[in-house]
Each structure stands twice: as C-alpha cells, then as structure tokens.
C-alpha cells in the first residue's frame, strides 16, 4: 500500500504539472482536442496508480507523449489557420439576420429543440429577439440580440459614465501582495496610511481590494 501511496503522489505531481502546462481553460471552454487530452491523461495515470505490477513508466511515458503532442499542436494551431480549422473546426452561423439557417443546423447536427434549449440557457425565449447566433467550436452558442430587444447602453442614452477599473487584491488573508499593490499603482506607505485611517492592522484584514482611483473594499477577518 505504501507503493500505491508513493506512486499516487508522483503521478499526481506529474498530472498537475501537465495540466498547468496545458493552459488555463475550464472543462466547459475546452476545444474537443483539449478535452480528449484531459480525459486521456487522467485515465493514463489511473492504471499504474492502482496496479502495482505495472511499471510506473507505463503511466509516465504516455502522459509525457500526450503532453508533448498537445503543446506542439496547440502552438501550431495558434500559428496556422488551416491547422486550427483541422483541429478545432470553424464557428457556424446558425441564425443569420433573424432567420434560422437549416442547412447549418443539419451540418452541425443540432436539432431545432437543442437550438431552442441553448437559447433559453442564454435567457432568450423569443426567436424574434435574435439577430445572429453562432455555434462556437467548443459547442457554446453565442447570441447577438436585436438592438430593440436589448437593454439600452449608456452610450445609446447619451449618458456620460465613469469607466470601471480593475480591482487588485493588495492584502489577501493578512499578507500584503506586493505585485498587486504595484499593479494598482500604490506603495506600502499608502497602504499603511489607509489601514491606519480605518483603524486596522494588516493582520486583521481578510481582503483589501483597491482600484487605481483609490477606491477600496475591505473585509475584516472573522474570529
């Protein structure tokens, strides 16, 4: 059993490294090839984890091979449009100018029921509200509503609004995040002044989020 434990730790480390190298996408956003690779790598690790008579290399060699191939193909599909089309396919316009493209539906093997379901999942219950709908390569449906059916934007109403800024977590769980602080455009002196004004010390803070305009959100630690 100790062998199983050690192998599990080793293979877990290798899997984490492999997934980290493969990039930052969630399961629902992966291209088909990426999804296959993720499932494959997990299954490849399982056999030597459970079966001690199999050498560890029977898991490591396929994982390294699949990882290498995935990285090469990912870069090639980034650099070459034909390779990208081959591996990922192309997005398909299912609704064009309000009209359902039945040929595109047939090509993508999506039934009308499925299309309506995907639209409902996007909070669209009336086909008349849609101008265009695109079936993306990862299976998601992107929808462009008709202007008259969407919420008015500030620009359409001629209203001047302030641009939103990114918020940076400058203190997280009592620890100062120096890189985030620098990205927000402040230094530790500013941070100490803000904390003093709030009557708090760094250790009391669970989260201190600041934006470049000086706006902040502070959550104190509980307990």
């Amino acid at each position, binding site marked *: 059993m100790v062998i199983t434990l050690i192998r599990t730790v080793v293979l877990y480390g290798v899997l984490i490294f492999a997934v980290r*190298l493969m990039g930052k996408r969630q399961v629902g956003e992966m291209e088909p090839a990426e999804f296959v690779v993720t499932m494959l790598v997990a299954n490849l690790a399982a056999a030597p984890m459970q079966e*001690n*008579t*199999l*050498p*560890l*290399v029977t898991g490591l*060699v396929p994982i*390294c*091979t699949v*990882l*290498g*191939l*995935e*990285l*090469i193909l*990912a*870069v*090639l599909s980034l650099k070459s449009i034909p390779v990208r089309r081959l591996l990922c396919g192309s997005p398909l316009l299912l609704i064009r100018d309000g009209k359902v493209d039945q040929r595109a539906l047939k090509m993508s093997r999506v039934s009308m029921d499925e299309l309506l379901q995907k639209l409902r999942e996007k909070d669209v219950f009336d086909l008349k509200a849609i101008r265009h709908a695109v079936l993306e390569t990862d299976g998601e449906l992107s929808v462009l509503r008709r202007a008259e059916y969407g919420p008015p934007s500030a620009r359409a109403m001629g209203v001047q609004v302030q641009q939103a800024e990114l918020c940076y977590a400058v203190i997280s769980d009592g620890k100062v995040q120096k890189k985030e602080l620098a990205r927000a455009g402040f230094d530790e002196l500013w941070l100490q002044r803000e904390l003093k004004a709030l009557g708090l010390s760094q250790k009391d803070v669970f989260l201190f989020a600041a934006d470049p305009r000086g706006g902040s959100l502070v959550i104190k630690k509980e307990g």
Partner: protein
Amino acid sequence: MRHFYIGLAALVLTAALCLLGSESLHGRAEQLCDNVCLAKSEWEAGRTQAAKEVICRTESDWQAQARLFSALWNHEAVLQISLAFRELANSKGQDFPALCDRLMLELTRRAELERPYWHNIL
C-alpha cells in the same frame, strides 16, 4: 514558441529514453539468452556440472539486473523469469534442455515486445 519547444523537448526526450531503455534491456536479455544457450550446449555435450555452473552464474547476473528489468517490464513477467531460473538451477533430470528452451523463449519474447516493430505497435 516557448511551449512548442517544451513540447518538442518532452517528445524527443521521452522517445530517446524509451529507445535507450528498450535497446539496453534487449541487449541484456540477449546476453542472458546466450549464457542459457551455452548451458544447454554443455548439458547436451554431457558436461552437466559445467552447465549447472553456467546457469548459476547467469541466474546471479539476472538477480543483479532484475530491478532494472522491473522498472520497465511488467513485474509479473520478471517474477516468472526469476522462477524459471530457479527451476533450471534445481533441475536434475532430462527436462534441463526443455527448461532452457522455455527460459530463452520467455526472455526473447519479453525483450522483443518492447521493440518498435510494426507487429508490436499493431
């Protein structure tokens, strides 16, 4: 492009290590086979004591390398070969040549399974 080179390096390194391991074990298995064949020849020539000595030496060689073989071959297969050596070393009767043949076949078969031939790939 950095990821491309990492991927390429991972592929090339893995392939190189696999080929190296496979060739190394094939060479060692061949050497063991040659010694077992020599033992069989000695036995058939009536020099049973010499045959036994060759087998004992070969078994020691095998034991010294068994861990390396275990790293790349199925552990059950390595155990079977160890048992076959033991059986051969303890053999007293006329089954010695047959046991030698069986052991050589097992060693050769296992070593050949790791080589990149089309029939192994398929």
